[in-house]
């Protein structure tokens, strides 16, 4: 399923039957037909093509945001877990503050300061969602750093950076992988929610959240504008969640069956 989604997103420009930005106002709000598989929107743009291109935007928002969040999460978590003591308590206090922050305000402000571009949205979702990962990584580090092989590496006089990245991190990466997959799902949902409040990827760029939000006005006139993008989000998020779960079972048998 995920593969299919990727395939679709990657080849959007080849399979899209129409130019997603092409307006044809005399063809607006037409219900699904062979010519326009999922109908047209209020400006006569082809919803199917817009959704295909939207998949790219939505997916890349999901991935980049998670990449950022994982990066920060690992960095903070590794430092806190490896060095312990005051580094740990300062960083963890910071994590607590971040966790208490109503993310909505942060998102709003950053989008406001930097302008509502796709990149900024990725950035904001990234910097407001790393705390879970960092706690995870920290816990992993706390237990790993006492293990023999780390002690051995230390005794051999290896540098901290090398120990962190070459020895501990690879061992603690499995759960990070799992959360990352689950986070992609969340990030896609967050982007849709942001669009709903008017702070998502800005129109006319077609993200799924956008198509959905624009379609809301026409809910009585054109059900397809609301139904299909919502469905696409649902399927994608569902696939990522299932994938994440599958990965968890495969990578970490201890966690099997747990949520």
């Amino acid at each position, binding site marked *: 399923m995920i593969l299919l989604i990727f395939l679709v997103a990657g080849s959007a420009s080849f399979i899209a039957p129409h130019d997603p930005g092409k307006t044809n106002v005399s063809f607006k709000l037409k219900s699904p037909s062979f010519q326009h598989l999922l109908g047209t929107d209020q400006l006569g743009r082809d919803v199917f093509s817009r959704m295909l291109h939207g998949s790219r935007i939505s997916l890349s928002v999901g991935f980049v945001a998670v990449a950022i969040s994982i990066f920060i999460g690992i960095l903070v978590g590794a430092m806190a877990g490896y060095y312990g003591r005051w580094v740990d308590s300062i960083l963890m206090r910071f994590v607590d503050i971040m966790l208490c922050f109503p993310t909505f*305000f942060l998102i709003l402000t950053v989008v406001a300061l930097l302008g509502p571009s796709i990149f900024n949205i990725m950035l904001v979702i990234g910097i407001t969602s790393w705390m879970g990962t960092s706690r995870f990584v920290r816990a992993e580090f706390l237990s790993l750093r006492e293990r023999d092989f780390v002690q051995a590496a230390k005794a051999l006089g290896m540098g901290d950076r090398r120990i962190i990245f070459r020895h501990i991190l690879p061992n603690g990466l499995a759960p990070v992988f799992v959360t990352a997959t689950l986070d992609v799902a969340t990030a896609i949902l967050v982007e849709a*929610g942001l669009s709903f409040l008017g702070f998502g990827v800005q129109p006319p760029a077609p993200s799924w959240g956008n198509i959905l939000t624009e379609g809301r006005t026409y809910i009585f006139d054109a059900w397809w504008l609301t139904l299909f993008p919502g469905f696409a989000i649902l399927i994608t998020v569902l696939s990522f969640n299932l994938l994440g779960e599958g990965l968890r079972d495969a990578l970490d048998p201890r966690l099997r069956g747990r949520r």
Partner: protein
Amino acid sequence: MARYLVRRLLYTLITLVGISIISWVIITQAPGSPIAITLDPKVSPKIVEQMEKNYDLDKPIYQQYFLWLKRLFTGNLYSFKDGRPVLDKIGERIWNTLLLNFVSILIIFSLAIPLGIFSARKQYTFFDNLGTFGAYLGISIPSFWLAYLLILGTVKLFGYPVLGMRSFVTEEFSSLEIVMDRLWHLMLPSIILAIGGIAALSRYTRSSMLEVIRQDYVRTAKAKGLPEETVYYKHALRNALLPIVTLFGFLIPGLIGGSIIMETVFSWPGIGRLAYQAVLARDYPVVMTINTISAVLVLIGNFTADMLYAIVDPRIRYQ
């Protein structure tokens, strides 16, 4: 324990001050100004300047911050938007938000735990698989989308208003009708708000239950020949539920943030919507105060969660 408590409280206080300073800086540095939100050719720029002065917006940031703090504690904090005391504005809405969230937590717990237990008992049956799939569906669905579909459906089906906290002409209602009406209006938003929680919690209960069932003492109980029902509901369940209770504390952070969208969709007069409007209007006093209150709620949540852990699980010791 007492020392631990004091330390926790101290941490909490520091966190709170940290949050309020960071958010003050962010909010006031955000572009836009509370005065510049109208584009009315009848308003001369001189007046805008005068109003900025009236709102103390010409003072340096740190002074504005302390003014905010002082006014908050002396009860002289007024909203820019309608000149009302900020605490009044929040006070009249916060109960609506809490009501909505309380009901949805109620729904989460009353549906998720039985569902989880049932799934655990019938592990790998059709019902269990259905439950698993349902749970994934539940956490994957965009809530506002679902809300729209449901509103549309119920309106088409029953032709009875679903928005807001109550129907509009209620004085001809009997008291029973009023109660039913309020319940009806609570129903949809709280169910939708609960869906994600039900999905997550029922999974959690299921796995927690499965883990406990495999433990020795349960097996012993079964071997003793106790009826299966007794074993499940008396012995296993209690232990399986302990960690779940603490989840309660972690649910609170989601309360305020999660209800912004639902309150907007259902025109529910709560503080999530207030916060959203205040941000758009750059109503700094309101934004800051809600921000701080929600941080306090979250901290209380974390605190109770930790305390519950300590009480529930005697293995945890604090120095």
